[in-house]
């Protein structure tokens, strides 16, 4: 039987520019548990450290101190290439600014994580088609992302996050550029992912998200410290 907790942080600390005049501690001994197959939200105002914690959980940056256990495996001390491998296989990221490559097409953006793999192009295309169909983006493969609307761009970002069939979806302020309707659509998509058994972690200060009924756990943060979990 699988353990309920999929990701756990133990006394994670993150200090930027240590020893320099502009040294800043973004995270102070953070210990949280993220449940498998559930939607967890990190909420807090700007500068509360939620994006930093998200990056640490997603193996995008190493904490200065503490441990991060993913499926009971401490990843903090792993060599870079193992972390990269983990990122590619286990995580799908949806960034606040989407961070799509603007002059590439929808298909090229979605396939980006698969370029440095040995997967055959035919298989890649098949996967992309399935993902795009699920996101109602079928038929838009050749369009340049710079010509898409905000909502469509976000779907492309979601598609890119899903192409590797990840166990964890990490989203940083996903509704920052969306109206209420699109935000609601987005939450529906995430709900579907949870139903598939994926773990979703969202960092946001949007009450529409953290007060949503689909959210299992909310972790409040302020100034790099935990406020409360509920």
């Amino acid at each position, binding site marked *: 039987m699988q353990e309920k907790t999929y990701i756990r942080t133990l006394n994670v600390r993150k200090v930027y520019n240590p020893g320099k005049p502009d040294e800043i501690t973004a995270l102070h001994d953070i210990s949280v548990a993220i449940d498998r197959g559930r939607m967890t939200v990190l909420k807090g105002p700007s500068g509360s450290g939620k994006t*930093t914690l998200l*990056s640490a959980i*997603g193996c*995008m*940056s*190493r904490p200065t101190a503490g441990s991060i256990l993913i499926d009971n495996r401490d990843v903090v001390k792993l060599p*870079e*290439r193992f972390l*990269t*491998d983990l*990122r*590619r*296989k286990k*995580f799908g*990221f949806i*960034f606040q600014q989407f*961070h799509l*490559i603007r*002059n*590439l097409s929808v298909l*090229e953006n979605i396939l*980006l*994580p*698969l*370029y*440095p*793999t*040995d*997967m*055959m*192009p035919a298989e890649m295309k098949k996967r992309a088609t399935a993902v795009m169909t699920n996101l109602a983006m079928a038929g838009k493969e050749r369009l340049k992302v710079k010509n898409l609307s905000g909502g469509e761009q976000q779907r492309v970002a979601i598609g*890119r996050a899903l192409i*590797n069939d990840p166990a964890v979806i990490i989203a940083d302020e996903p509704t920052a550029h969306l109206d209420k309707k699109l935000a609601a659509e987005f939450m529906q998509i995430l709900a579907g992912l949870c139903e598939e058994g994926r773990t979703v972690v969202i960092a946001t200060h949007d009450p529409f998200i953290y007060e949503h009924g689909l959210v299992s756990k909310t972790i409040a943060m302020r100034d790099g410290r935990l406020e409360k979990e509920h």
Partner: protein
Amino acid sequence: MIKHLKIIDYALASLFRRKYKSLAIITAFTLVVAALASILLFSSALKTEAAHLLDSAPDLIVQRTTGGRHDLIPAEYTEKIKDIAGIGAVTGRYWGYYYDPLTGANYTVQGTDGTAKNLELLDGRLPADRGECAIGAGIAAIKKTGTSGELILVNSSNTGVLYEVVGVFRAASSLLTNDLIILANEEVIDFFGYPPGKATDVAVQVYNKNELQTIAGKVKKLLPDTRPITKSELVRTYDMVFNWRSGLMLTVFSAAVIAFCILAWDKATGISADEKQEIGILKAIGWDTADVLALKFWEGLIIALTSFLLGTIAGFVHVFFLAAFLLAPVIKGWSVVFPEFHLTPHLDPYIVFTLGFLTVTPYVASTIIPAWKTAITDPETVMRG
């Protein structure tokens, strides 16, 4: 393999995203390589041609010097040289310069003893009698004369002498004969007013080529006021002449090369905020540091390799099919009577490898190295900016 093909795909897509800039770099790079290749191929072909042709030249030329200056050589020196062991034929050469004030050209007047048989590269024949001459194609053109035509030259007594042109050398030999006027030996002596019993220099044939330096030493010892010049010294001198000519061009050209290097360096090392963020995104979504560097490697190689190949081919075509028309003004200088260059195509692999190494390697390195620092940084730090 599949992975690298896909990375090449992405690299090409990256370059197409900034297609005008990429095209400008490729164009400039190709022109630089083409110019370098032209200069190197041209001078290499000239040197090879020189070595091949001078293979048949006399093994040793003995000239006399008086007061450090060239002087005519007495005929009895010929007999003394003949006595040295290992020496075959010893022949006095009679030749000199002739300045034609009407055309502003210098000609070389050379004597022949009449024993030379008919030559394939000569239309007509060599002079057999006095009053006859054979001339180079350049002279025929500038004096507007030809076989059965006339040539008037002013001798050392300031008297005009009329010669009948009995032969004109073909253009294919113009590298050797373009400014030549061949007269009988006696005619040359009279024309320049050489004192009797003196020649311009002496051509010596040596049986054993390995003994050439030794024999040259013996000649010098026997006749201390002479200067023996070996064939290899001639070839080396021509190497030097072509080297400094091409070196002169390279020096003039170096300003353009440096400007291009600055442009390429600026483009490749000024890794922009956009590029940094792109690397951060790639790393965040699962690209390894090695994958990112492979991407940058291919981006650099695509441009450098394409430019190198196109530039080298263009240089080859320019030199051997288009007679190096762009280089000719620099190579020519201002010679009034200038031969056509019918160089034998010659492509030295060493030149190609050197050119490739000196052009492709720095460009690829200047694309990878700036990206390396960003590629090894945590993606979160990179994306923060």
